[in-house]
């Protein structure tokens, strides 16, 4: 079971500004994600979604403001933050010369974690990765299968925080449904999930809250009602109205 304090914000950006090569990408960004919450940062191309994720991972330094993960300033507790975080890049590329099992074992050994083959198989079962595919080189994997492998790895690392970059882009509808189901399961288990996406429909389907990001600023937030979904039309209208491409 993931141990995390549900009362506090697990991910928190306060007046966060990030410049890349002297260009302001994030301009006073403010948002908070609580434990067990699925938060979607929705925005068009160039809105600053990936920059936000990379800043949360410590790859970009804030030019001002603050960015905290698990209550700690990212750059001050980089090892802690990265240990607690499972990042899924858009293409979820793993090593193509390795099998899914070898990939998982390699990353786990670097993370100082020992798992048995049975435990690894359990994680693969949980993400519904086909048994026959597990010992096949990843060169032949679809994006969905690569994502499942990456999530299995995150489960084995028992990372309580997930940062997902365009997780459903390029997935077929069945794979999207499977993925959304998995994300909900993770959140119900206590995991905190921040996903960045430009897919309004997908975000509304899975997120508890949506933050609308435009030109490096949060221009709106939408929350799902109790036991319901965020209204797609409302978000779509705001997305279009705000001029996000």
């Amino acid at each position, binding site marked *: 079971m993931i141990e995390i304090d549900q009362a506090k914000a697990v991910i928190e950006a306060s007046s966060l500004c990030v410049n890349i090569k002297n260009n302001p990408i994030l301009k006073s960004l403010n948002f908070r994600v609580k434990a067990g919450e699925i938060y979607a940062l929705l925005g068009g191309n160039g809105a600053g979604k990936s920059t936000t994720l990379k800043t949360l991972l410590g790859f970009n330094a804030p030019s001002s403001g603050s960015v905290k993960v698990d209550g700690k300033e990212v750059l001050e507790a980089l090892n802690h933050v990265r240990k607690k975080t499972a990042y899924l890049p858009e293409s979820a590329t793993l090593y193509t010369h390795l099998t899914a099992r070898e990939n998982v074992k390699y990353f786990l050994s670097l993370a*100082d974690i020992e798992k048995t083959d049975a435990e690894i198989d359990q994680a693969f079962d949980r993400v519904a990765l086909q048994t026959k595919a597990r010992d096949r080189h990843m060169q032949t994997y679809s994006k969905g299968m690569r994502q499942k492998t990456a999530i299995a790895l995150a489960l084995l690392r028992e990372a309580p925080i997930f940062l997902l970059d365009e997780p459903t882009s390029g997935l077929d509808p069945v794979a999207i449904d499977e993925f959304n189901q998995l994300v909900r399961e993770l959140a119900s288990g206590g995991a905190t999930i921040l996903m960045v996406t430009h897919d309004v429909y997908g975000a509304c389907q899975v997120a508890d809250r949506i933050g609308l990001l435009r030109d490096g600023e949060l221009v709106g937030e939408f929350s799902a009602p109790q036991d319901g979904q965020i209204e797609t039309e409302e978000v779509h209208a705001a997305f279009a109205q705000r001029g996000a491409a």
Partner: protein
Amino acid sequence: MSENSSSTTPFAKIIIVAKDEWRYWLRSKLAISVLAIGLLLTLSSVIVTAINTMELSHTRHELQNDADQTFVDQPDRHPHRMVHYGHYAFRAPSPLSVLDPGVDAYTGNSIFLEGHRQNSAMFADQKQGTALTQLGSLTPAFIVQTLAPLLLILIGYSSVSRERESQTLTYLLSQGTSGFTLIAGKGLALMSVIGLILVPLTISALFSLHEGESVAAILGFILGYALYLTVWALLVLLFSSALSKNSESFTALALTWILLCVVMPRVASSTAITTVPAAGKLETDFAVIAELRKLGDGHNANDPAFAQIKASLLEKYNVDSIEQLPVNYRGVIAMTSEAKLTEVLNEFAEQRMQTVLAQTIVSRDFGWLSPMVAIRSLSMLTAGTSIETHHKFLREAEDLRFNFVQGLNKVHAERLTYQDDMNRNKDLDSSNKARVAAKNWQVLDDFAFAVDKPSLRLQRSAPAFLQLLAWIAVLIIAIRWVGKRLV
């Protein structure tokens, strides 16, 4: 699901990355082909060069013995005919020349020694060979100096850049693996390849122990190559870490190889020739002839240049004519003339050697700009195949020449009367009288050329070691800087 955490040390993580790099190479046809070709090339060149060098060494020893024996087996003759009959000095190759023939291939390995002349060394491999071998042979030194960096580039250019290109780098770093661990792991994998490349070289070097080479020289030689290849491994890591695409990394490394291994050594030679100009052969020959003319003709005892010697001899022995002297005047003149002539020849030879050495030193300074220049110097110096060793051979061969010529001149002066000498062309009987017994040909010193002591060779190669260490230090600083910014 239970997590079993173990406390893996940073070094253990580096080994994990290195092992995965090997797994990648072994599963990649290109990498495994490159590794196999590299090992085969090194191994075959070591074997071929070892056979050639051992054969050469054996031949030279045999030729030296033959030349010695042929000289002493000559029948009764006029001693001055033996001066012109001459003798050969052969340079036995240094034990480590199996791996790096150095300047031996160009300078020649034997000298014809005769009176009144200092001949050049001859029978250089590069001059004897066919047009094809004159382009350079596939020696172990050439393979490790020139081709091994290419092998490292081929298998390592994408070591970090492919992680970036395939986005596994961000993924890896996001999970807490540091840039340092990643680069160090890739570096360790490359170092293990270097170890493999050096295995045949080390085994061959150890064989030279049987040929009398010292452990210190062998260690210095192998260490030098290990440092040189480390420089290349670091260059590969630096470019692979700093550039974002595999193609960029490969192009940059290929250009660097061309610059450091092909262009810089030639720039070094050209700069050396320009900054330390040397007189041409024709110019030098004319200058030598002009100086020698001032000394008089040693074959002509009546040359006015020897009038003073004649007077002092007559005075010394208190006689009125050279016929009354207890020694053969012609032999004394030959001795005196040879001594003066040798002094002049040595002066020019020393000037020439100093010029060549000064040029070599200028060229070696380019080791600060090219690790290839540094290892070439280091390799030849520690192997005892440098220009310094060749100069030592020239000086020792000249000593041998001077001693045997003067030994024969002494026989000429003391064992043959002036009258018999002057009448030598009168008739057959007179000619026979003007000969001395063959037992007098035992004037040859034993000639067994040996390279400089290992301590001196290592001392001479110290600047090249420093150059390679400086390269390594600078590259490590650069890689650390790049590693901190690795995303």
